[in-house]
């Protein structure tokens, strides 16, 4: 080993050590756990631990509750994700527009939900959604519409949570989009204008292509975040009504910390990891092709 690489290794050592202790070791331990039936009985007596190989995974994929949770999570990500991107891009375009005044004020206002505590916000939204006293229903009845049981109605509960998640999260991606927009050279717009491109054509042929890398980053970040949704349904609905807001992480939490089936819960975690990994890969591939 040359002195340079030894020095490099020495400098990298703290980071590698931290990663090994706090990331790789737990991940490996978690995977090992998912191959066992670690549960309540094991806590009572460690002799009650069995090696199951992949049986947890087989049971998981064969259970209807897993597919319910998977479907709900996918619904949340496929509706909530694009909605977040669209809303945050719109907000970024507005803030970036030359005519707008008090830009920093708007930027702060839109970004504020991001830095608030998720649990606190969820509790506030639970009140806002209250069937009788909530602000949303007050507004509906003010215009003569019937009030809605947002969180109690199986068809609407997940959508109500999506609205909260979009409101809470769009500020972050908006900032990234603003940064992306500011990186687009002004000459491109000038050239486009000289060629006679209107607002829409400029947006379609200059802004969108130039934002490509930003879209990739935002897409990955949003997808990872959305697939791991937990606190909102945990605080607001506990997975109900009729399991309509039970998400993958909720399922993992329930199995792990409510029924203490740690082996099974670890298997859920790894399946989720695979799903998120696949989603990320697909997005990157799609981006490459463009």
């Amino acid at each position, binding site marked *: 080993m040359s002195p340079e690489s030894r020095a490099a290794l020495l400098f990298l050592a703290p980071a590698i050590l931290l990663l090994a202790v706090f990331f790789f070791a737990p991940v490996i331990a978690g995977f090992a756990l998912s191959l066992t039936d670690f549960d309540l*009985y094991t*806590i009572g*007596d460690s002799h*009650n631990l069995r090696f199951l190989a992949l049986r947890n995974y087989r049971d998981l994929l064969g259970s209807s509750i897993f597919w319910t949770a998977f479907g709900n999570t996918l619904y949340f990500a496929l509706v909530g994700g694009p909605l977040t991107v669209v809303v945050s891009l719109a907000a970024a375009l507005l803030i970036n527009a030359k005519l707008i005044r008090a830009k920093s004020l708007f930027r702060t206002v839109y970004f504020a939900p991001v830095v608030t505590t998720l649990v606190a916000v969820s509790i506030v939204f639970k009140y806002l959604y209250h069937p009788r006293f909530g602000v949303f229903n007050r507004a509906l009845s003010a215009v003569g519409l019937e009030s809605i049981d947002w969180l109690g109605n199986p068809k609407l509960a997940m959508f109500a949570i999506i609205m909260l998640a979009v409101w809470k999260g769009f500020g972050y991606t908006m900032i990234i989009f603003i940064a992306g927009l500011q990186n687009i050279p002004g000459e491109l717009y000038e050239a486009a204008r000289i060629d006679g491109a209107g607002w829409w054509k400029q947006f379609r042929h200059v802004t969108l292509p130039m934002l490509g890398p930003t879209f990739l980053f935002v897409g990955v970040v949003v997808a990872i975040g959305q697939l791991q949704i937990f606190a909102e349904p945990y605080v607001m609905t506990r997975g109900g*009504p*009729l399991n309509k807001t039970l998400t993958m992480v909720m399922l993992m939490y329930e199995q792990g*910390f409510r*029924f*203490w089936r740690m082996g099974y819960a670890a298997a859920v975690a790894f399946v989720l990891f695979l799903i998120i990994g696949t989603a990320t890969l697909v997005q990157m591939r799609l981006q490459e092709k463009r």
Partner: protein
Amino acid sequence: MTRNVEGLMLKVECKATQILHHLTFNIKPSTFLVLLLFSCTANRDPKERLEFWALGREGEVVAEMLADFERANPDIDVVVQQIPWSAAHEKLLTAYVGESTPDVAQMGNTWIPEFTAMRALEELAPTVVDRGDYFPGIWATNVIGGKLYGIPWYVDTRVLFYRSDILAAAGFPRAPRTWGEWGQAMETIRARRLSRYAILLPTNEFEQIEVLAFSNGSTLLNRDGTRGAFRQPPFAQAFDFYIEIFRRGWSPAVSNSEIANIYQQFAQGDFAMWITGPWNVGECKRRLPAEMQDKWATAPLPARDASAPTGVSMAGGSSLVVFRGGKHRAAAEKLIRFLSEPAQQVRFFELTGDLPARRSAWSAPALVSDPYFPAFREQLERVQPLPQVPEWEQIATAMFDRGEAAARGTVAVPAALAQLDAKADALLEKRRWMLDRAVITR
């Protein structure tokens, strides 16, 4: 002198840690508990510090009652930690795994099998209290494998709530006593449209199926708790009756979340009967309009047939348990004995509305003179514990899920029962394996 000052400082410090502990409890219970124990056991205060976790409303009022206990036992200092019900189960589990359990805790009696499976609980001597004074079904929820792990604190069970005016119009001046009469009453109410529906059995409550099965002699699982007993006649017949209630239009197939205001609907005659628990006595008194107050009543569950006095309901409620490895065993038992005194049980009922676990406390005027509680008193003599396996909650969830599917007609009854047995058998596989290895002694 210096010693005194030092003692005082330690006390102040200890209080500060306690406050800190209270403030940060939701974030890092274990860390602060360790800190707390450290600072407080190390001090020279001669008082014995007993940590007591109580849940929800009970946790609020029990502190009031403990002043008397501390006066009678000046050497014991009880620290009550109040935990919301919604977080209690997880908190107790994680506390045990994180080795930061309290000395004494209140626990839903259906959780005892789980904590016993983890070997978290200390075995108690039945002589701690007067065993004969307790309802046998309630007492049994605390006994696992012949050993006692908890003392009942208050009880909970389900009885029949009914609109006495509607049942009287159907020819039942008193509540139906048997399933035969019950079916007849429901059919009359339906045929003569005395109310919109005869009964309300929310499809997302497994308790409804449980009490019908108990009344028909089912134990839900086999004796060892290793396989489902859902296709056996006692359960299958009860399940048939349950499904028939929906099929004949006696009850709507709706879940709780589809009912906006149950009290209003009960008052306006949307349904005439309802199987629910003691908390709804207070709620009905408060929420039903004044002109309704003499038109509702409670009765024990109808029996399968005339050979039994009443049906069999479920043995619910909370127990007081002692965690293993605590250093204050004697003080813990003193506290349990104090809270179990009939006078304290009555006081607890007055403060919370929770029903006493001891028969002698039921002679209190507030309970005897009330028109609604005697039905509970009668029912409590015939209650049965749920299957005492940690997996029960998951099996019960499957039970209402299959019940709902059968009630809505998306699955045939025999198929639903077979699915239930399959689900139970799969969940109980570990128990069978352990029993084969004779690790558990049942």
